[in-house]
């Protein structure tokens, strides 16, 4: 049962999709070579938006032209995906990105050869039409976050009935699992009694903090982001920050890949910079593990692999990591040539992380 506004939004989406197909049609009709231009999705083309504090695409554009086989195939696939999305909207269905990939197998010549290609194209369409993947009825299959702490939410279940939970008292040890769609129409944030949200990379660390009742002791909302966080997770963190005024602290491993996880939460990911405003939490802070932590806490550390070192050097040329803090940390990590996992803190006992490390680090950030 779509609401009036939802239907209006769908009509707008269909209109903008049709607009793209019309451009191709016009090009062909006028004897021109069909083409589409979209912002370059590279780290050299992301700019800090001073107003919103997030990184979005700059002015550099790439052109996809039917002059090359690659470009021509991409345009053709775009048309097929447009057609497919339009059909889904009209029939009130939805599919996962993986399903889209498999459906494309039936398009023979226009089919995708990898799911990465279809994922990228879905993102292209978001950029070209200014809509969201969700508007296209495309769902990710990636896992949303688990939450533990004194937060009360109200979720609309499959039957369309609102259900209310407290994310500490009404759930088991694994916490509350957020849905793919965390928009207000689906998920309402009712009430919260916490001082900050702690985004945790690994399940092991999340479970450690749950077992040690860190959420209760430190008035924290624990969010297990499961590695590189899904869009829903990042959107959820942003809502916690914007609507409930919670500070978002990020607690991840001490290696370049985890630094990137932080960047996608705080600054916006390069791949999805067109919706950074919607996903990124610019005030999120990086709690650890830092390169300095490895030295200060004398953590058990592994040597950087050549890939790690290359990723660190890439970070050095990534404009999102341009501030003093990151320059120093990345340089230090390259200098000591070591990386450490969150769980390396267990060297000093199971309670060390909750009794000593986190309180110290939180105090350093001026929150404790």
């Amino acid at each position, binding site marked *: 049962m779509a609401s009036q506004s939802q239907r209006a939004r769908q009509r707008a989406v269909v209109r903008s*999709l*049709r607009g793209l*197909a*019309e451009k*191709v*049609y016009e*090009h*062909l*009709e*006028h*004897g*021109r*070579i*069909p083409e589409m231009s979209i912002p370059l999705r590279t780290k050299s083309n992301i700019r800090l938006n001073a107003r919103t504090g997030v990184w979005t695409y700059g002015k550099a554009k790439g052109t996809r032209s*039917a*002059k*090359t*086989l690659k470009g*021509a*195939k991409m*345009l*053709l696939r775009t*048309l*097929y995906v*447009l*057609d497919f999305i*339009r059909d889904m909207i009209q029939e009130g269905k939805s599919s996962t990105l993986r399903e889209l990939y498999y459906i494309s197998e039936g398009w023979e*010549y*226009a089919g995708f050869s990898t799911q990465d290609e279809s994922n990228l194209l879905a993102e292209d369409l978001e950029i070209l039409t200014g809509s969201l993947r969700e508007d296209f009825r495309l769902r990710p299959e990636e896992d949303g976050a688990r939450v533990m702490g004194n937060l009360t939410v109200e979720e609309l279940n499959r039957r369309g009935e609102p259900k209310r939970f407290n994310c500490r008292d009404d759930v088991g040890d694994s916490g509350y699992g957020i849905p793919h769609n965390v928009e207000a129409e689906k998920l309402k944030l009712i009430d919260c009694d916490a001082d900050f949200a702690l985004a945790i990379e690994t399940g092991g660390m999340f479970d450690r903090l749950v077992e040690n009742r860190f959420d209760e002791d430190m008035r924290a909302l624990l969010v297990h982001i499961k590695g590189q966080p899904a869009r829903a997770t990042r959107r959820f963190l942003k809502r916690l920050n914007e609507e409930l005024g919670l500070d978002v602290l990020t607690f991840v491993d001490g290696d370049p890949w985890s630094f990137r996880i932080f960047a996608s939460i705080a600054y916006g990911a390069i791949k999805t910079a067109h919706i950074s405003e919607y996903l990124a939490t610019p005030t999120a802070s990086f709690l650890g593990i830092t390169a300095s932590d490895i030295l200060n806490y004398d953590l058990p550390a592994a040597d950087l692999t050549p890939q790690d070192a290359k990723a660190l050097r890439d970070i050095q040329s990534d404009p999102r990591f341009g501030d003093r803090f990151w320059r120093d940390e990345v340089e230090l990590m390259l200098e000591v040539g070591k990386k450490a996992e969150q769980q390396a803190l267990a060297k000093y006992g199971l309670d060390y992380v909750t009794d000593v490390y986190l309180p110290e680090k939180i105090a350093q950030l001026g929150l404790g």
Partner: protein
Amino acid sequence: MPRQSFAERLAAKQREISVSEFFERNKHILGFDSATKALLTSVKEGVDNALDACQEYGVLPDLLVQIDRVDRDEYHLVVEDNGPGIVKRQVPKVFGRLLYGSRFHTWSQTRGQQGLGISGAILYGQITTGKPAVVRSKTAQDDVAYQIELLIDTKRNRPQVLKRDFQVWDREHGTRVETHLRGRFINGRQSVMEYLRATAIVNPYARIVFQPPDGARRTFDRVSSELPRPPVEVKPHPYGVELGTLLQMAKESSHRRLTAFLQSDFSRISSRVAKEICREAEVPPESHPKNLNLSRAKRIHVAFRRVKIMAPPTDCLSPIGQRLIRTGLRNVVGSLRPEFYAPPVTRPPAVYGGHPFQAEVGIVYGGELPGDRPVEILRYANRAPLLYQQGACATAQAIESVDWRRYGLEQRGGRGMPYGPAIILVHVCATRVPFTSEAKEAISPIPEIVAEIVRALQESGRRLRSHMNKKARRAKTSEKFEIVRSVLPLMAEKSAKITGRPPPDITRTIAKIMNVIWIDERVVFEDGRHRVRVQVYNYTSARKRLALHAVLPLDALDEATVQPAPTQLRADGKASWKLPWIPPTEKVVIAFELVGLGRRGYEEGDLFVSGVPTTQVVGAEPLPGDWDLEATLSEGDDLPGDPLAEEVAESG
């Protein structure tokens, strides 16, 4: 007893320098200097002998080469052929004397030329193992084979027969030679296997079975029943005769007058020329050839050069020929699926120092041939493979002097051995191949010979380049082709469906993307016929008119199937079609069928165009300047869209 003079003692010693000592001292120039090479040379002498015999006899060769290991370094070698066999009384002489036989004094193109021949191999075996050779031979008239065990009396250079026997033999006729020898069997480069493989390439009419000492029997099958004509013996041409030979010939001549000797024992000397030589040399024409002394012979030798004498006849040569080179290469390297066999080049005969010779080249390219090393060189002299001394050989020097970068192979600095996935075959045939040594390992880099090989290489290289150009342009254009053929129509259909409008006309977009005239040749082989379709697509934005030209194999062409009929078809197979106007994105098809060529007899034709700028054309070459068209078809300035030129051309 009178004291022997020093000279007499020396003479006695000299007599003792026997053939075997001579052999021992000169092993290196005879090809027996290492154990590995000795085994290979023995095989080579046997096989050369066998193939020559079969070819002279006019029978398709059927050879067996078998090597067994007897001891750590002793091998038992068998070479068997289905040649004419040798009559009983000649057998000991043929195999038991060094330098016996007519070959050393005749001039004809045979494999086993100049060398020691099979008796050298027998002698080597005898010296190194002490064991006799076993020779078996049977002529078509014999019911049973005659078999002897024989040693060479090295002091007197005479055969010494140890045992005579008759044997039942299932071959109708042929010869079998068995020797024991010290040697070493290897695989890989410069091995017996490599030699036999190389032999099989240029003798596709031969069946060669090889049984190595360890491992499986390998058979090189016969893939052609076309036997080359037997070599023709020719008399020496005066330019190619050395002074010593001249003296020897005069001594052996049956003629009694010098002029008659010159006229009938040499080629290209008429009675007028003979007299002129005598006058020039100031030697009485009536003198007896047997009395020709050194100073007179010298004067005659000089006179040969002063008197104008016709070049030697060249019809005595028997090149392998384009077809057999191609067939042989396919048979032996076909398993590597090469992408291109350049049409082999056989140069017209030429002459060096009085000897006629001819150079031939074949190039194979691509497929699974290794691309990261120097190209493989297959060298041949009178159809016999050359495996050693590549650097000293005229063939290698010719290859190194060509700038292969022009023909699409890698080569540092444009000199030296080229790199790339290719095999280059070079064959030199001559009545007398100038080898660098008695071991017959390399052809002397005589300038005339090197120059002819270079010309053949360049000609073949041009074919290779033209193939590679075509391939590169096709690859580039085939991407565009895919866009306009596969992507754009779907794009039109889909955009029309989404927008709910009629399908757009994509003609102009196609022309904009392609902007070429695309010529595509498809060959299908079925029912023994090659069905060839040449499609000429006009993927430009204007209508086009052009002429297409091709060289058709007339002996295989089914003329009734040529559609449309060519505007002109000449006796040499050159065909030209003046095509009608082709509107943008439309095409014209030319079809014809070839009969009786065999599956691989036709892969792609040489297509040429005229009448349009050739930069606009993909899939055909510009018409070469030497095509020699008649006036009505020379459309050089008959540009499309110029009706006046059109009328002139048609009325002319």
